[in-house]
């Protein structure tokens, strides 16, 4: 099966671990079955997320990719009536049995619509540190600056740290949310369609910074934008109706998928 999808390359070529080098598994899911009440939303999802890579999860609306993402940092527990079977393993440890706030420090999340707190820019980034008891007076300002730099936002906000976060544009707010998530130094960063609410330029900025981030952080991104996945992902998983149809290196998925459903989705026959 040969399908034609152009994979555009970034202006800045990645440095660091070459994509060909085998990466160890950072986070894995084994046999995840997930239920909203009586409705089964996920069927036996099993996959391995490699360290220091960008893994993208694609699929049509309602296929369960966001639901799956949320099981990785146990955000599903905030909703009543949900049930989870299976295993989530972080660095060899059982993620489902460990203290959930500890887990969420190690696995951070950025949401679809930017959700900055109605506080100042500084306080937004500092929040994770404060709440986890990592904020010492001496290091707080430095940590905030470091996170804002990692999120490629420092130059734009360094003079207005006391302003309300709501004063920023949509794209800036999303990068602020990324900075906020990065402040607690997570090992894994989950992003749930982070640029679907943003314009192309803002989207581009976020994709660039993800490319930089993957050197120090494992990234899992859910997106319904196939071109985005093709641009930035190292590994890609295709979800359909709550099942993981195919999981492979991104170039393989987008040029030579082995399942027909994947091919149909990639070529736009549905979704």
């Amino acid at each position, binding site marked *: 099966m040969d399908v034609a999808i152009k994979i555009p390359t970034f202006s800045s070529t990645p440095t660091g671990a070459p994509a060909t080098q085998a990466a160890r598994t950072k986070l894995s899911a084994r046999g995840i079955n997930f239920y909203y009440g009586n409705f089964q939303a996920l069927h036996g999802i099993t996959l391995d997320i490699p360290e220091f890579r960008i893994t993208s999860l694609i699929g049509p609306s309602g296929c369960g990719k966001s639901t799956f993402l949320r099981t990785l940092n146990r955000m599903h*527990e905030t909703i009543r009536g949900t049930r*989870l079977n299976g295993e989530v393993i972080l660095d060899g440890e059982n993620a489902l049995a460990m203290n*959930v706030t500890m887990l969420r420090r190690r696995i951070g999340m950025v949401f679809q619509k930017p959700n900055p707190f109605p506080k100042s820019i500084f306080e937004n980034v500092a929040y994770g540190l404060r709440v986890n008891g990592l904020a010492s007076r001496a290091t707080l300002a430095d940590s905030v600056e470091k996170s804002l730099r990692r999120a490629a936002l420092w130059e734009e906000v360094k003079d207005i740290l006391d302003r309300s976060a709501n004063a920023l544009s949509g794209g800036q707010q999303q990068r602020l949310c990324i900075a906020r998530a990065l402040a607690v130094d997570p090992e894994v960063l989950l992003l749930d369609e982070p640029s679907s609410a943003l314009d192309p330029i803002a989207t581009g900025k976020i994709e660039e910074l993800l490319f930089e981030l993957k050197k120090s952080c494992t990234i899992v991104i859910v997106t319904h934008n196939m071109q985005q996945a093709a641009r930035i992902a190292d590994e890609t998983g295709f979800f359909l109706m709550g099942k993981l149809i195919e999981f492979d290196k991104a170039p393989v998925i987008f040029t030579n998928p082995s399942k027909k459903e994947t091919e149909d989705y990639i070529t736009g026959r549905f979704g």
Partner: protein
Amino acid sequence: MTAEYHRPTTDLKDTLVRAALWIFPMAILALAALLVYELLGLSVEARAKFGWAFLSSKEWDPSIEDFGALPYIYGTVVTSVLALVFSLPLGLGAAIFLSELAPRGIADAITFIIQLLAAVPSVIYGLLATFLMVPLLRSTINPFLKQYLGFLPIFSGPSYGVSFLAAGLILAIMVLPLIISISREALLTVPADQREAALALGATKWEATWQVVVPYARLGITGSVFLALARALGETMAVTMVIGNTPQISESLLAPGYSIAAVIANEFGEANGLHLSALITLGLVLLGLTVLINGVARLLIAASNRGQGKAR
């Protein structure tokens, strides 16, 4: 791979906080229970002595310890119904104007003013009723009514100004903002395409409003009427200042009367023993009435919210 059911783990502090907070809603439940308990307790003397006949007896004489609630129930009901008779057409008309016919800016400003009307303390209404409305009634309106409509039993008999009519009028003014704001909200939640469908069929603006929009909102409007009724039933200060404080049942609206809330307000301070118990029993009757009517009102409004689509 093993499949296990994973319960979400909760932090100890979360459980502690939740338990500590739980005390407060429980306190509210306890408060409500205590309210009923205390009222039942202190009314037992009168209830034991008179039984259900309390509600139908017309006599109220502290000196011979004979108490009956009928004149007060009568006065409460008559003044409240009168209040609705005056305020419903006026309120509904204003609500229709504000939701359907007025331009948005003006409607918002006027609605703001109406909400302020709702915040005026009842004793202020009482002041105005006493020094403005009653003299007006006595000097102008009552004679007018007697002259042209005196043949009607509701306008018969001598008139002093303080009367069922005076109380009904001031109550009407007090519940008017309630009817306007809730009816307006009910009208605003009627989907726009209802009105548009009527207009597209050639109806005039008024016809579309009156024959399509208003019936669609009838649940919410009826709910507002019940809420207004509950409010009028329990109103004390303004009523007691202008109703005349005479426990009698009269067919004439121009005669003085009494209401449950008014007699409690006037006699409670000096009462004891059976008298006190009888007054508390009256309070219990009032509580039961208002809780019932409020309950019906909330059911209607909830049903109205469920049935409608998005607000325009």
